[in-house]
Structures are given as C-alpha cells and as structure tokens.
C-alpha cells in the first residue's frame, strides 16, 4: 500500500477544503448545535488511512488555518488538532482493526478530547462554557462518522491516494 512516492495529495487538500466549507455553511435552527467538527473528522480519517503522510504537523497546520479563518486565538485549534492527530497516530492500528460501528466510539472519544481542549483554552482566556452543549458536536460527529468514512474510503480507492 505504501508507495515509493506519494500520490493524490490534491484529493487530501480538496477533502480538507470541503470540510472547511461544511463547517461554515449555515444550517437550519437547532441542527447548528450538533454540527460536527468536519475538519477534525477528516483529519482523523487521513491520519488512520495514511499515517505516514498525515501526522501531527499536518494536524497543527490545519488547526492554525482554522484559527485564522475563524478569527480566534492563534494556536487554539492548532493545539487541539495536533493532539487529535497524535492520538490517531498512536491508535490507528487498533481503530482500523475493528468494525465501523465500533470505530465510531473511538472517534467520539477523540472528538470529545478535542472539544474539551478547545474549551479549556477558551476558559483560560475568559470564556468558560456555560452548559454541556459544547459537547454536542462530538455526538454529531460520531453519528456521521460511518458516512464520512465510507465516502472518503471510496474516494481514496478511486483516486488511489497513497
């Protein structure tokens, strides 16, 4: 599976762009609260599928782009996504070995850790979360993980990203 040279980098870039876009488009009413962190999910997918290419540095860079794009604190999402990429890199062998429905629980744990990190940092700079709703996107992410996994897997196979 590992090739001598990397191929299909543009597919990865496009998938991240789509994830950025999906996290910005307006959603009707209450669904907004459950909007999953698409960027983190795409990062987890590529971190599992191509651990030799998508690692902690990529996670950090993507997170920094998120920080710039959302006008937040520089480094907040960068740190959170670097941690997610690290955890993915250390556990991808186990996550890959289990059926899809069991994967969703590992993904839930990763997404919850990401949310908690982001809100710890927000709390430090004076915006403590006021209720438990901030964990809702992790649940949305868990529910949509099988869909994202299947789509990205087929895309990866079709374009032979390696």
């Amino acid at each position, binding site marked *: 599976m590992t090739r001598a040279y990397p191929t299909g980098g543009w597919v990865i870039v496009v998938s991240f762009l789509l994830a950025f876009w999906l996290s910005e488009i307006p959603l009707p009413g209450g669904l907004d609260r459950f909007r999953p962190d698409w960027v983190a999910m795409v990062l987890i997918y590529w971190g599992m599928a191509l651990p030799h290419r998508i690692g*902690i540095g990529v996670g950090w860079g993507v997170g920094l782009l998120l920080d710039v794009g959302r006008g937040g604190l520089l480094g907040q999402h960068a740190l959170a996504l670097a941690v997610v990429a690290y955890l993915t890199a250390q556990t991808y062998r186990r996550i890959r070995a289990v059926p899809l429905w069991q994967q969703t629980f590992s993904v839930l744990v990763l997404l919850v850790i990401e949310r908690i990190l982001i809100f710890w940092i927000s709390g430090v700079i004076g915006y403590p979360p006021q209720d438990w709703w901030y964990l809702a996107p992790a649940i949305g992410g868990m529910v949509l993980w099988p869909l994202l996994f299947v789509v990205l897997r087929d895309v990866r196979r079709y374009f032979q990203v390696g």
Partner: protein
Amino acid sequence: MAALKPSRRIRHLFAVNPTAVLQLGLWGALSIAMMTVDHRYHALDGVRDVLATAAYPLRLLMRLPITAENWLTEKWARRSVLLEENAQLREKQIFLNVQLQKLIALEAENRRLRSLLESAVNTPERVLIAELLAVDFDPYRHHILLNRGRQHGLYVGQPVIDQHGVIGQIIRADPLTSTAILITDAKHALPIQINRTGVRTLALGTGKFQELELPHVAHDEDVKVGDVLVTSGMGGRFPRGYPVGTVTAVEFDPGSPFAHIIAKPAAQLERIREVMLLDYEPPIIAPDALDALAIRAP
C-alpha cells in the same frame, strides 16, 4: 510461559511511534507559546495579517456556492416577482422620504437648540456596508468576521450597526477582513441610557443572543418592561441615540440593592448578513470643559 507472551499481531496493534511524542511536544509547545503571545501581547498581528490575506482567496472560494445561489436567484427571479418587489420598494421609499423631511426639520431645530446650549452635535458622516463572512464557532464567544478591512478604512473600535440597532464594534482590523465583537459577547459592555427616563447604565453581554443584562440599576429607579434602550455616547466609542434593545424582564431581589434587569437586543444578532460601519469620531473633550466640571462639583 510462551502462551503469556503477546503474539506479534497483538504487539503490532499496540506499537507506539516514539518520535510522535516528541513531535507532539514540539507542536504543542509552539501552540502554547503562540497563544500566550497572541493573547497577552498581541504581538502576532503581523503574522495574522499575512495568514488572513493568504486565506482570503480561499474564503472567497468557499463562499462560491452561496454567491452563486444569490446570483442565480437574482438572475432567474420571475419578472412579476421583481415588479412586485419594485413597487413595494418604491412605496417604502416615498414613505421614508416623508419621514425624512420631518427628520430634517427636527434635526435643524435640534442643532439650533444645541447651539444655544453650546453643546456639540456629532452625526456620523460616512457609513460603510460590510458583509458577514463567518461566525466564531465557539458558542460563547460572539465574534463575527466581516469582508472589509483596513484597506477599506476600518479601524479598531469602530461601531457596527444594522437597520434595527447596534450590533457591536470592531476589535481587530486585518488588511482585507476584520473581526467584530457582538454586544451579547460575555466580555462586552455597552454604555446605554433608558430612552424614556434617561437612566444611565451598561448593557452587559451574557453569551446568549437574546439577552443583555443591565447591572447597577437601583430598586427605586423607574424601569419598566418594554422600555427602549439607546446608546448613551459615554465611553466615546458609540455615537448617542442608537437603539440597543428593549427591556424584557425586571425582577426585584430583596437581598440585593439592585434590580435584576434583562433586555433583548434590537438587532437580530443571530441572522446578521450585512452590517453598517459608522465612521464616528468621538467628541473631544476640551480641557477647560473638564475644569468647568471640576469647579461645579461640590
């Protein structure tokens, strides 16, 4: 003994990458350093400028579907719908013109009266329209990103309003984009006045889009549900007299010297699409005016 030893396959599953820890340490330390510098010293504004400018085309690309949708709706709108809308707008314009005439007369009168009282009138000269690019994802931090920046003459502290009332103010102006904080952000406080009685207080953000809190209003002050709040012009950031919201609840807690007052913002903060930026120069207080105050004080 051999049976207790994990098989190669199992060991493979639990293999760790020793350099990953090192990488995480490095990137993590870099993030923490960046956040500290950004938050405490605002020293990364140059870096942010560069990154924000680089990200601008990307942002336009991401907005393409929305832009395309707007364009298509306009392009393919039915003639009858357009005509109807046109008629409505014309009617509205006539109505507004009539009101404007009254307003011009009032304004002239107001200016005359004010000149009698020797107080300065500040009417904002220029209004700039900006579009919303993004909303901060942190649900407790009400920041929005606008598609105008320093290049278009925006500056930090500039008041942002919409057709219903005050929205917030600019807190960061990048070259092509800028960030505004909404009045409902938990860290925002806006000097206001109750229009009916002139009672002055602050409107504190609560982190909820529908709620402002008015602290330090004594029990015996005259505040009623439905009172309109306007900017008081104190603090020099906002011009006077722009609508902020209406009082929705007044509760008296016998244990506290102040009433618990909640207001609802006039602007529809959850549905912002376009905003107006006022070019407002705060009144400069002449030193002798301050002296006069000091003399009059007992």
